[in-house]
């Protein structure tokens, strides 16, 4: 397992020590766990709702990793990552509806709702899954590119960037609430019936989706690990810690930030793409600024600047949310805000601090990543 992760043989072992670049047993363990869970779902399938929950949690974990890449490793806190997640989700929903329309002839609800005879022109070609995948990732990256270029070029960063990205997702939400966008408006899109020709609710499809999401999570983790352990990853850290110095040393930080930012957007779109068929609905509420902040909260609670931390945070917070918002919905917001305050004030590196606290008493000597 760890062999697969050791993707940076060019860096001498001595230089790979340190909080982030050292061999990452936590991440290796997580990837192993994810793969084992995928295998377990196939061999010993539990109840379908449990399978579905595992799949959704894995999609959130991918989303958290995408944010951790730009926040933890590049120092850019996006409060608008829900936008890219939603782009993936919407394109996936469009594909599912177009596919079912082509196969069974049942018109999507939104066509009936708007009284349209055919789907708008930008739905063309979405019956093809590869095109939908390419469109989702490409569109997210393109939107990220335009927004990132405008922001990074004029050196908008820090808190400024965060609140502008929040405004971006807010505006996108208002836009999607309109019914004439051809994307379901207020009601969003739901009623997915077919996935690659198979009925959506069948246990095999549910398991398949969950396993695909878990495998994607493992792949994203390994890929992200390879990235952050590479020379490029070191440049990311340098940029996070002192961008001006890196620029002075002759590195083009705008290009670096822009590239990682677009990559992160594409990964977030992948998460949305995998998430939507599992919940069976997408609507503009995924674009609410609160949800985008929550993504940052998962990362902060898990431990920013550690890929494993993002995964742990996303899964822990969402598992707790699934459980508590059913068991005691009134209390959940208080618990969430309390959790955030405790982590932000007491555990600057999130829950991972608890682990290091016990395993390595000399944690105080390590300079944790400062956002």
């Amino acid at each position, binding site marked *: 397992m760890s062999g697969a992760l050791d993707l940076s043989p060019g860096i001498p072992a001595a230089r790979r020590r340190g909080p982030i670049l050292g061999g990452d047993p936590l991440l290796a363990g997580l990837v192993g766990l994810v793969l084992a869970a995928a295998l377990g779902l196939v061999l010993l399938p539990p109840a379908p709702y449990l399978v579905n929950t595992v799949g959704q949690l894995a999609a959130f974990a991918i989303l958290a990793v995408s944010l951790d890449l730009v926040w933890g490793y590049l120092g850019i806190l996006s409060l608008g990552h829900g936008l890219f997640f939603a782009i993936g989700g919407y394109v996936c929903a469009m594909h599912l509806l177009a596919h079912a329309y082509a196969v069974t002839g049942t018109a999507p609800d939104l066509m009936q709702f708007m009284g349209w005879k055919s789907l708008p022109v930008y739905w063309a070609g979405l019956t093809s899954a590869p095109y939908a995948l390419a469109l989702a990732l490409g569109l997210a990256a393109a939107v990220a590119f335009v927004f990132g270029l405008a922001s990074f070029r004029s050196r908008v960063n820090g808190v*400024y960037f965060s609140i502008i990205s929040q405004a971006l997702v807010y505006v996108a939400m208002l836009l999607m609430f309109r019914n004439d966008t051809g994307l379901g408006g207020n009601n969003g899109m739901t009623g997915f019936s077919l996935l690659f020709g198979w009925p959506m609710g069948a246990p095999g499809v549910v398991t398949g989706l969950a396993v695909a999401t878990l495998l994607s999570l493992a792949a994203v983790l390994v890929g992200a690990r390879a990235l952050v352990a590479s020379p490029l990853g070191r440049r990311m850290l340098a940029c996070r810690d002192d961008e001006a110095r890196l620029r002075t040393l002759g590195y083009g930080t705008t290009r670096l930030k822009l590239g990682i930012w677009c990559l992160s957007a594409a990964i977030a779109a992948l998460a949305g793409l995998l998430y939507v068929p599992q919940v069976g609905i997408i609507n503009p509420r995924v674009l609410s600024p609160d949800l985008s*902040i929550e993504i940052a909260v998962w990362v902060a609670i898990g431990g920013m600047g550690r890929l494993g931390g993002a995964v742990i945070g996303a899964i822990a917070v969402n598992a707790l949310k699934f459980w508590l918002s059913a068991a005691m919905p009134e209390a959940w917001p208080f618990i969430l*805000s309390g959790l955030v305050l405790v982590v932000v004030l007491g555990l600057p590196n999130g829950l991972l601090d608890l682990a290091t606290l016990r395993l390595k008493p000399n944690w105080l000597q390590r300079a944790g990543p400062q956002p």
Partner: protein
Amino acid sequence: MPPALAAEAALDRGALATALCGDGAAQAKAVEGVLRNSAEATSGDLAWAGTILRALLDRRLACLGESALVLDRAGAADGRDAATGTARPVTGGRSPVLGLRQRALVETASGAASLLTGADVELRRAGLAALERRIATVPEALLLRAASAETDPGLRAGLAAIAQSAALSSADPARRLAAIRAVSEAPSGAAFSRLSALKADAAYGSDPAFRSALDAALARVERAVSIGNGLAVLYNGLSFASILFMAAAGLAIIFGLMGVINLAQGEFIMIGAYATYGVQEAVRRLAPGWLDAYLLAAIPVAFLASALVGIAIEALILRHLYRRPLMSLLATWAVSLFLINGVRVAVGSQNLQFAMPPYVSGGVPLYADFVVTWNRLFAIAFAAVTLVLTLVILKRTPLGLAIRAVTQNRDMAACLGIRTRRVDRLAFGFGSGLAGLAGVALCPIYSVNPGMGANFVIDSFMVVVLGGVGTVVGTLVAALGIGGANVLIEPLYGAVAAKVIVLAGIILFLQRRPEGLFAMRRRR
């Protein structure tokens, strides 16, 4: 006036009472007679007719043979004779039933009686409303008589409008032209649609004088209405900008000083509004006579409530996060989540009901359809006072001096003996208090509920980004710009497009000036 009409003018009370007890045709004929003669009848006759007609409508009329009795309430044991006024028992009487057509006639006639003889304004207003429903059957002389006797300005305006529209469809061309001119003298959207309707009139095609007069009047009204609408848009933009300014001024001061964006700023607005509600309820309990003054009394209370909550949050949480501004975003978001849900649990999530004192209800029609509403003017005036106070505090007080010093160079200010931590805390309280003031100004305009802050907070962030940190003037200009742009674009392309265009504009603007409009010179 023809003598026959004059003779009819004196009302035969006995005959009317008998007719009302008769069949449908007799009822209709008698009531039409009352309506036709209403302009000439004496007030005493009219008042009497009104009484008996209202009794008929309410089924308080009992018929005993030839005479009719008016009861105090439906089903009473005895009543007074309609014609003579003597009290008599009702036994054996029956209540006449009105057909649909007769009921409408009776309503109109009793409306005419109330309009001409009603003692209080409400009664006359109800009478006019009844007449308006069947305006075609109302004789013009009746409206003229009512207009000459009326004292209430609102009713006079209503009467004039009705008389005017009657004149517009009059058969006499000279009167029509005069009416068109008169309508175009007082331009409004309603006047425009009333005049446009005349284009379908046959005279528009056949009579060139009528045609040119109507076209000229239409052009004049249209121009006035668009100017009035433009003024209304600017006015709404100004009031929106006022709220944005109050929400953003505190945000900008805090951000300039500490580099912290307070995501809970919207909740400080909410706290201010809830404090206002608390003051209203307290005044209602303790001094009901002073209820109208509660908005003014709430100003210091809301400021202090928000400021105290702000200071508490600063002392408990943000103090530890000054070197980690991104984490302070999450922390303040958690605070906002906590405050919203705390209020939701403690008070409930319904909209709060506010009493509207006279100085924030109603307005003055200024030009065409443009009405200066007091509640928005209250917000604008409030923001202006806040602006002056903020400038005075920042430029003329020791605290303001300290805030400016720490904003420019924290380390140097600390070296010179300024207690920067204390300045931070006071400034945070001050900024939060300003948001609380925005909450007071919002009470008469928007609905107040736990989630209200979310509607303003993103716009006020954009104000800070655009205006530049730590400058009140920049905040003011940016608030005016964003508020104005929002309401200017909104009628053209819709509210969503307005937000999209404003955001795109801000991002483009930052390409040129990343520090905002009025960047304060400072060392970091």
